[in-house]
Every structure is written in structure tokens, then in C-alpha cells.
């Protein structure tokens, strides 16, 4: 630490820090535009000029390092004059259209003009006009005349999003920001451009002209879409969420948000929202009052359970439900005597159930990812499944960390990978094992014989990529193996887990699950785990009564066709959901409108085991109610004991050990942030993976991803996200050689058959896939008729 003096005040600063950082740490703000703490220094706006003793000229605070004994003046006549002059310069071309600008009221240029600028314009010349650009459905570049050329957006794209999709063209007064060759920004982090832009040049398209900054009440919340639990603030107007912005949390999302977290709020206001309970009367769903709906549901459940036995009841919840909801659902199901309850609808392989030493989690804190030397991600469509995790890995790779990926498709993750490899789904365990064996050979150890490393699967050839990945772990002080969503959904999930665990033990790496949902860890904490049938079996062996919470089985299940078939041919389906899905009239008998995360209180446990409690930001729409209240009411009507909770907090306190939340007050006004206990990714000795199914020679294997903007019920209804490239209808993507073997050309319509259904899609060349694979996205209405997310399928010309 060194000591400097700012305006006569003694301030301690880190050695090597810039003046602007040192001042900020001391609580002094220096006006600036182009400086951003997460981006490189450009020093092009000149707004942060300050006077330093013994320096002949003013210096930019963002590009000047502190030195011991430095005397800095922020309010000298020279500095104030410079600030005034800079603002006058910027306003020569910046239009004075604040009344129609969406940034008005929260604009840095507006604020600084009021704080340091002059009061009169001396400019009589015409202002520069910049043509509008179109960079996609999320970020508006209509009013580029407002741009002040700070280049924050350019630096964001290059440094954070991983690809320089924006650049500055032209020189001097003609310079302007543009996408390359008129292309838009196709990034899952593009929404951050809106936050990064200090003026109103880049604004939100869905929020365009909806409200003013001063009309909104900002309420803290937690994003319910991915396993990170990004901290968000919901901007509420008239009891509707009209905008979502990030809440800074260095340990999770820093100051960024993925587009899914940011723009999914449109789903909350979708016309699909249910306002009243529905009951099937004479074959059609009709609106009824709450008491009739609850009475009906309770009586029907009770009588069916009495007639067919408790095992006839199965409950399935979305892994994006809150901790409290999952707990109450399993409590209700277990109290009725059934053990058929689960919250992992997209999983296929449940062989690790009962063999885990603890709750599967990331294996480390999220912030620790930055400290790794080597990391291997197995089975993940990294950038689309986990945008914020990919962001951290991207930075890690940039700083010299060796990041490798073993996945099902060689997607462009915009990460500078050390090595990358795409394997067929059936070969994924073998490929991982090959990495393990290569590593063991290099370090001269024999891999321990575990039952997971069976000879049943053919050994994977040791390619350069395999060796490179193995080598990246040699000598790494801190390393990790992360299993992604595809690895968890795979029918080989148990085997992959076991091999990765063995590799981690031998190499000293940590094993972690990135997780596929907001409450992937919370479901285990809540005990929403089957003692009877799991999420797959409950549809494979149809039950008489289904209790569904927040899931849309036609899109969310591993085998949607099988799930919908079971639901259609059963006696009673009770659905607790905020949305009236298209398929609901097909199978639901009672629909109880629940409030989504923005309208209820609850907690999410993210993949690092962090409990984050949040409150509802607005009143539930219509007569929808928080799901925890619905479960309590159902429990009481069913005559079950222990459903008299006064609030969701009392439910939470029953689940979590009392000391979990003690002593840690929440960030940003949210109470109760703590860590859950019992996190452990190890498997016990007795674990045997399911027998590996090797597909017949020449069979085509399905590779399915969950498209980022179809991952859950809320996102699917967000209209702006539906217009992005990521929401394009699924195609049957194949390796050029596979396509050639099938004698199908690129762009042709093909019929994809996978028992029990078929889908007609467009064939597309995709050299990033392994051969003999067909990539068909799951979670989309077009492919909902198909079977398992992974398995074999047939393709023929339509």
C-alpha cells in the first residue's frame, strides 16, 4: 500500500493501481466515460483528466498509475475548466434529444453535464448525423448520433463476449461504431452492451419507450434460469416487471448478465399467464374459483390414492422451482405415502442415486474458477448452456489458464481453448477415459481399476487432442474437471461421473457439476429425490395421478413423447404452473395458477451451494398465488399434518440448518445468504454404472442441446428472445460425410424418426459434429414428438 493525497486528503492505494481505481476505493468519484473497471483502458474520452503536482499537463486518471506521495487535485480551476471544455466538445455532436432518449434520467452524459458542464451552447453549426444500424432484436442502434466514441462496446465485445463483433470505422468526425460487414451482434451476452454504453446510443429494444428511469421501483431478485443464480434487479412499474438489470456481485455474475437472464422478463408478462384456476368439466378446461379447484384436486387425489395405492401418485417439479416449493412438493408426496418424486426431468441416468457421498455441486466457489491453471469441461454446449461460466473460462484462458473441452459438438465457444474434442455421445465416457489413461501414462501412474472404467465400451483412440488435454493437467497446481448439462443428461451420466471422479482423484483436480438449472443443488437439499420411481421411470411406467409443478413435460422431459403419452392416458393430472401451455388442455385435469419467481418469495441454491433468498417484486397476477401457499392449502385439504406455514421463510428455516443463514446479511437488501452443507461429488465404492449401450454399426446417434432461449417455461415466452438467432427452429445438423453417406444435400427437408415419433426438419451441414451424429435440439415444439434426448435415430429424405 502506498499513500497518495487527493484534494488534500490522505488516501491509501494499492501499488500499481490506477488513479481512478484508487480514488474509487476511497469513495471519491472522478468523472469518466470510457473507463470501465472490467474493460481495458482506452483513455480516449479525456473526461477523467486530473491535475497532478509536478506534472506539466493534466493527466487521465484512468491511465495514470499511482506513485507514493502523489498529490492529485480534482477540483482545481484547471481541472474544472478541462471538464467543462470536454463536455462542450462532446455536445458539439451529441443531439440534445434527452426528452425522447431512453437513457434520459440515467445517462452519464446528462449527469456529468449537470455536474461539470456549462450552461449555454456556443455551437451554431449543424450536428453530425450517423445512420442507424440493426444488430439484432435485443439491442437498438437506431440513434447512433448519440455515440460519444468511448469504445466501451467495442472493448466489451472483444474482451468479455470473446469476439470483436463491433468496431469503429471512419476517422475523426466521421468515425462511427458498426458491426462487421453489416452483421449484427450474435452474442449471448449482448444485453450488457446496453449497460456498458454511457449514453443512449445502445439501448434495449424490448424496453424501448416503455418507461422512464424515475418511474421504476428497483427490487432485488435472483435469476431463475441457470445454475449461477445471477443477481438481478427487477424494475417494476404498475406491478409489472418492465426491465431486468444486473445487480453487482463479484462472486457470481460480477456486473454482467446473460441475455436469457436479462430479457426473459417478457415471459412474465406474456398473454399465456393464467389468472384463474381451471378444472376439466365436460371435457374442457373451465375457469373456477380457488376453493372449488383445490377441493376438487384434493378429493380426486385422495380417492385415487385410496383406490390405486400411494404408488399410483407421481410428482415432478421443474429444477427452476424454489427450494421451498421443491421441499413442500416432496413433503406432500411422501406424506401421501408415495416415493415417486423428482425434480430432474431432463436426466436419463439415475444410477448415482444412493451412491453419492453428498450433494453434487460445482466442486468449488464460482470465484475460484479464476484461479485455476487447467480446466476440462466435459459434455457442455458451454456458451449457450452457461453463458456466465463461459465468460469466466474465457477470461481464464486469456490469462494463460489451460482450458480444454470434450463435448458432443465443437461449437464456437469464443474461448481460446488449449485443446478441444468432440465425441459421439456413446463415446464420451471412452474419450474421457482415454484422457485419463493418457494422463496416467504421462505421470507414470497406473489408473486404478474402477468398475466405471469397464472394457464394455471400445477404447477411444489416443489422438493429439486427447494427449494435449491430458498434458494440460500435468503440473497444474489447481485444476478442475467440470461436467456440463449434456454430460448430466446423457444416458452415460453415471459412467462419466465415475471416470471424471477417478481422473480427478489421480490428477488432484476438483470435480464439479456446472448444473443445468437454478435450483439443481437446491432440489437435493430439499430432498425432492425419488425413493420410488424417478423422473424418467414415472412416465415409462405410467402412474394414475400426476402432480406437476412448473414443468412442461412436452418440452422439459428427457423423453417428451413418452411423458405426454403417459399424461394423456392417466386418470388425474394436477398442474401447478404460471402458464397456460399449448399442451395443457391435452392432459391437465386441474390447473392451479402459480406465481413465477418475480411474484413469490423463496430461495435458490446455486451450483456453488450458495443459498440466495429473494422476495416477490410485484403482486401475483390475477388470482394466481405463490406455489408454496398452494402446496400448503393442498396439504391441509388432504388432511396431512405439518402444512401450516406462515411464510416461505418458515419453510426455508425447516429445510436449512439454523446456522446456515446466520451472520450473513444479504447483498442489496436481500436477507439470508448462506451456504448449504453436505456438498460432495464423490461416489461410493459400490457404485456400478449402467451397462453401456453401444449403438449398432452405422446407426446415427442423436446429439441434443437445450437451446438457450427454450430452456424453461419463462424464457420460452419471452418474445424478443424468440427473434434471436439462438431461437431459430431446430435443424437436423450432420457432419458433411454423414450427410454424403445418406445422400442428402444441405438444406433439404428430412424426416427424422426416433421411436415413438418423427419430425420433419431441414438438413444442414455442420462440420463441428462428430461423424454419424445428428444434432437435433430438444425442448422445442418441432422436435417434441421425438424420443430420448440421446439415442439412435433414422434420417430419410422427406
Amino acid at each position, binding site marked *: 500500500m502506498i499513500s497518495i493525497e487527493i484534494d488534500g486528503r490522505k488516501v491509501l492505494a494499492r501499488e500499481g493501481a490506477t488513479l481512478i481505481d484508487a480514488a474509487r476505493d476511497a469513495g471519491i468519484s472522478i468523472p469518466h466515460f470510457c473507463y470501465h473497471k472490467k474493460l481495458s483502458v482506452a483513455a480516449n474520452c479525456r473526461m477523467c483528466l486530473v491535475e497532478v503536482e509536478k506534472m506539466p499537463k493534466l493527466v487521465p486518471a484512468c491511465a495514470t498509475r499511482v506513485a507514493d506521495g502523489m498529490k492529485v487535485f480534482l477540483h482545481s480551476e484547471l481541472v474544472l475548466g478541462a471538464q467543462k471544455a470536454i463536455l462542450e466538445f462532446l455536445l458539439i455532436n451529441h443531439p440534445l434529444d*434527452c*426528452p*425522447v432518449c431512453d437513457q434520459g434520467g440515467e445517462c452519464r452524459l446528462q449527469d456529468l453535464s449537470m455536474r461539470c458542464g456549462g450552461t449555454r451552447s456556443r455551437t451554431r453549426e449543424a450536428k453530425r448525423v450517423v445512420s442507424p444500424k440493426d444488430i439484432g432484436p435485443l439491442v437498438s442502434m437506431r440513434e447512433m448520433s448519440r455515440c460519444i466514441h468511448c469504445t466501451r462496446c467495442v472493448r466489451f465485445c472483444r474482451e468479455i463476449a470473446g469476439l470483436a463483433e463491433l468496431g469503429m470505422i471512419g476517422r475523426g468526425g466521421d468515425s462511427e461504431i458498426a458491426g462487421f460487414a453489416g452483421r449484427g451482434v450474435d452474442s449471448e451476452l449482448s444485453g450488457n452492451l446496453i449497460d456498458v454504453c454511457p449514453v443512449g446510443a445502445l439501448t434495449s429494444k424490448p424496453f*424501448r*419507450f416503455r418507461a*422512464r428511469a424515475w*418511474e421504476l421501483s428497483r427490487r432485488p431478485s435472483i435469476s431463475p434460469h441457470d445454475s449461477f443464480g445471477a443477481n438481478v434487479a427487477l424494475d417494476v412499474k404498475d406491478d409489472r416487471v418492465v426491465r431486468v438489470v444486473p445487480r453487482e456481485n463479484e462472486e457470481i455474475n460480477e456486473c454482467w448478465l446473460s441475455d436469457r437472464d436479462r430479457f426473459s422478463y417478457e415471459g412474465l408478462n406474456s398473454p399465456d399467464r393464467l389468472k384463474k384456476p381451471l378444472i376439466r368439466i365436460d371435457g374442457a378446461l373451465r375457469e373456477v374459483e380457488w376453493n372449488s379447484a383445490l377441493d376438487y384436486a384434493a378429493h380426486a387425489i385422495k380417492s385415487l390414492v385410496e383406490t390405486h395405492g400411494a404408488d399410483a401418485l407421481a410428482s415432478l417439479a421443474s429444477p427452476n422451482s424454489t427450494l421451498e416449493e421443491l421441499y413442500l412438493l416432496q413433503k406432500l408426496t411422501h406424506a401421501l405415502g408415495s416415493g415417486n418424486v423428482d425434480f430432474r426431468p431432463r436426466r436419463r441416468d439415475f444410477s448415482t442415486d444412493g451412491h453419492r457421498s453428498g450433494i453434487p455441486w460445482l466442486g468449488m466457489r464460482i470465484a475460484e474458477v479464476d484461479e485455476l491453471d487447467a480446466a476440462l469441461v466435459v459434455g457442455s454446449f458451454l456458451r449457450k448452456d452457461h453463458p456466465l461460466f463461459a465468460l469466466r473460462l474465457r477470461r481464464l484462458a486469456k490469462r494463460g489458464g489451460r482450458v480444454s473441452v470434450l463435448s458432443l459438438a465443437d461449437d464456437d465457444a469464443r474461448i481460446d481453448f488449449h485443446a478441444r474434442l468432440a465425441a459421439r455421445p456413446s463415446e464420451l465416457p471412452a474419450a474421457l477415459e482415454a484422457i485419463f489413461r493418457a494422463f496416467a501414462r504421462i505421470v507414470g501412474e497406473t489408473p486404478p481399476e474402477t468398475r466405471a472404467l469397464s472394457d464394455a465400451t471400445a477404447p477411444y483412440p489416443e489422438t493429439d487432442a486427447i494427449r494435449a488435454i491430458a498434458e494440460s493437467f500435468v503440473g497444474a497446481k489447481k485444476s478442475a474437471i467440470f461436467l456440463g448439462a449434456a454430460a448430466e443428461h446423457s444416458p452415460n451420466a453415471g459412467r462419466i461421473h465415475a471416470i471424471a471422479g477417478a481422473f480427478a482423484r489421480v490428477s488432484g483436480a476438483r470435480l464439479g457439476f456446472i448444473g443445468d438449472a437454478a435450483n439443481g443443488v437446491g432440489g437435493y437439499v430439499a430432498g425432492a429425490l425419488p425413493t420410488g420411481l424417478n423422473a424418467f421411470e414415472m412416465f415409462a411406467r405410467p402412474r394414475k395421478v400426476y402432480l406437476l409443478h412448473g414443468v412442461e413435460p412436452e418440452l422439459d422431459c428427457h423423453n417428451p413423447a413418452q411423458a405426454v403419452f403417459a399424461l394423456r392416458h392417466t386418470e388425474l393430472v394436477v398442474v401447478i404452473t404460471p402458464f397456460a401451455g399449448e399442451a395443457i388442455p391435452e392432459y391437465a385435469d386441474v390447473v392451479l395458477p402459480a406465481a413465477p419467481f418475480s411474484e413469490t418469495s423463496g430461495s435458490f441454491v446455486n451450483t456453488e451451494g450458495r443459498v440466495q433468498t429473494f422476495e416477490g417484486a410485484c403482486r401475483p397476477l390475477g388470482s394466481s398465488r405463490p406455489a408454496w401457499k398452494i402446496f400448503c392449502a393442498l396439504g391441509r385439504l388432504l388432511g396431512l399434518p405439518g402444512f401450516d406455514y406462515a411464510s416461505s421463510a418458515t419453510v426455508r428455516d425447516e429445510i436449512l440448518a439454523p446456522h446456515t443463514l446466520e451472520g450473513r446479511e444479504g447483498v442489496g437488501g436481500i436477507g439470508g445468504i448462506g451456504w448449504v452443507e453436505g456438498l460432495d461429488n464423490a461416489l461410493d465404492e459400490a457404485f456400478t454404472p449402467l451397462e453401456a449401450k453401444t449403438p449398432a454399426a452405422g446407426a446415427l446417434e442423436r446429439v441434443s442441446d437445450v437451446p438457450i432461449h427454450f430452456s424453461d417455461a419463462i424464457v420460452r415466452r419471452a418474445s424478443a428472445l424468440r427473434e434471436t438467432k439462438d431461437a431459430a427452429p431446430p435443424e437436423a445438423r450432420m457432419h458433411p460425410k454423414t450427410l454424403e453417406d445418406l445422400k442428402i444435400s444441405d438444406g433439404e427437408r428430412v424426416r427424422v424418426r426416433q421411436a415413438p415419433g418423427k419430425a420433419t426438419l431441414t438438413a444442414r451441414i455442420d462440420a463441428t459434429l462428430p461423424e454419424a451424429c445428428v444434432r437435433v435440439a430438444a425442448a422445442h415444439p418441432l422436435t417434441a414428438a421425438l424420443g430420448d434426448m440421446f439415442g439412435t435415430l433414422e434420417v430419410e429424405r422427406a
Partner: protein
Amino acid sequence: MASVKDVFKSLTLGELVSGLTVTARALFAPKTTVLYPEEKTPRSPRFRGMHALRRHPDGTERCVGCKLCEAACPAAAITIEIAPNERGERKTTRYEIDMNKCIFCGFCVEACPVDAIVETRFHEYCVESRAGLVWTKDRLLDNGARREEEIARDLARDMKYR
């Protein structure tokens, strides 16, 4: 002595006469009141009467939906909803002033960056219910259209003081 004088005065109706003299003087003096509503007093160009929304000469609305009037209103009488119009411009879909709340302070007029909301000289409105005192956008635009000439003239006269 004084009391004798008083008695004399009252007996000769002197007090009555002096009182009636005042009445008679007032009766024939020039009048300062007007016969409202047949006659009206002149009003200042800054008179703060009924609000109006103005249009541009080409017929498009002046209001850009910046919501500054709504924010400036101390009585929270103004309600605005905005959305992009068919040309993608920022326009109001709803603009209401609740006259039950309005205190005619004129802050909305001062806040308006485009001279869209103005207060006219017109003040002779009456309604039969409180609901009728919520002025909708249509009514405000209509008032503006009726008095545009006068509004423009008043604004021009006031311009040098703004």
C-alpha cells in the same frame, strides 16, 4: 352639547340623507364590474386555464412522451403511457390530467421541452360528475386544435421572458 346635536340630526333625518348620498353617488358613478358572461374582463397571455395538447402545423402531435410534466406535477395529476408509434417514434398512448387534483401551478407547461402541453385562457368548463374532470388525450388535443392560434400568439408574446 354633543348629545343635543345628535338628537337634532336624527330628528331632521340628516344621517339618512348622508347615507343615501353615498348610495346616490355610487349609483351614478362609472361601473368597474362586468356583466359576466355577456361581458368579460381581459386575460393575461399567461393565464392558467384549461390545459391543451398542441399539434405541429402538419398535424402530428407535438408531445414526445418524455414524461417530464408527469414528473414535475406536484399534485400527481398527470398519467402518461407511451409506446413507439407506427413510425417508431416515441408517442403517448394515453395522456390524462385529473382536474380533481390539478392545482393549475403550470409546472407541466414549464417542464415541457416541446411546448406541447400548455395552459390556455379558456376556463369556462363545467361537468356534472368528478369522472368528467379527468381530461383525456382526445379532449386535450381538441382544446388545442380549437385555440391553436391564440396559444401560438400567447407563447410568442411570452417568449422574450422565458
